[in-house]
């Protein structure tokens, strides 16, 4: 299926959920995140769409002015079509429904995105940090992240960014 067909299939079931964004590529689709769990269930179970594989979940932070997003890459092994779903979040309180129960692999993907961006996936059964230590402070891949100065008594030497290579 092409993007237009996938778009119309989602739009007929959930009218008004697709956000128009002309900057997107051939396989990208931006959605409103409010009904995300229902849309995801539909995308998985509808025989025409049948997205049976969740390839990746990525976080994206464009800086203070731009969006904080979660991006999902889906693929259908049955129909051999793919799509990237983009959902933007509120920067102060980034929350979106978890799809970990639909695609089991989403468990670790969502934990990683939570670990790096602090996006909270509501309904996830075990939302903990996956790579950083449990007591780590801050969200490392956010643009405004500041490194820790002290970790369990270990001093983190400060290296000034302007100095560069000397």
């Amino acid at each position, binding site marked *: 299926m092409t993007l237009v067909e996938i778009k119309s299939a989602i739009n007929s079931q959930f009218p008004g959920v697709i956000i128009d964004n002309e900057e997107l590529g051939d396989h990208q689709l931006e959605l409103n995140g409010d009904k995300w769990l229902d849309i995801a269930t539909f995308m998985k179970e509808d025989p025409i769409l049948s997205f049976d594989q969740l390839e990746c979940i990525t976080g994206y932070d464009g800086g203070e002015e731009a969006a904080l997003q979660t991006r999902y890459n889906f693929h259908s092994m049955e129909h051999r079509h793919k799509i990237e779903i983009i959902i933007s979040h509120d920067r102060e309180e980034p929350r979106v429904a978890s799809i970990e129960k639909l695609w089991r692999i989403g468990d670790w993907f969502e934990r990683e995105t939570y670990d790096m961006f602090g996006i909270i996936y509501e309904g996830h059964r075990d939302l903990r940090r996956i790579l*950083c*230590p449990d007591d*780590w402070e801050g969200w*490392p891949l956010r643009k405004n*992240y500041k*490194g*820790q100065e002290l*970790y*369990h008594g*270990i*001093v*983190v*030497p400060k*290296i000034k*960014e302007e100095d560069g290579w000397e």
Partner: protein
Amino acid sequence: MGVLENKFQDNVIVASMDKLLGWARSTSPWYFQFGLACCAIEMMSSAASRHDLERIGMMPRSSPRQADVMIVAGTVTMKMALRVKKLYEQMAEPKYVISMGSCATSGGPYWQHGYHVLKGVDLVVPVDVYVPGCPPRPEALIEGLLKLQEKIQTERPLTRKTV
């Protein structure tokens, strides 16, 4: 040994206990077998048949209780730093640490933007020998180990330290 010279039969060796202990310790420092990153591959290669660390008496041990030398081979993350410290504390005295490669020595390629990387393992454990390289070749590691052996040999474990 002036007074003792030629006083014993041929099969008796006379030496100071200090030197004897230094020799015994230095010629079989068993190392703690754990790797953190790509340096571990070079460490494994050093231990394998081509370079063969057992030539110089080095043998891998899988428990910190049985090891004398800890080779910190690779990038030490903040998460791992606490565990490296704990493993070092579990080793029995006398114990030595080799910092292998630029990551363990100074943070390596992560020194500027690696928010999660410890900038040198000497921030958590005392280091005896630093081996430069990214990663160091087995020859470089062996050179470092021989330097460590020299260092162990000069120690005088029985001599009373003046305070």
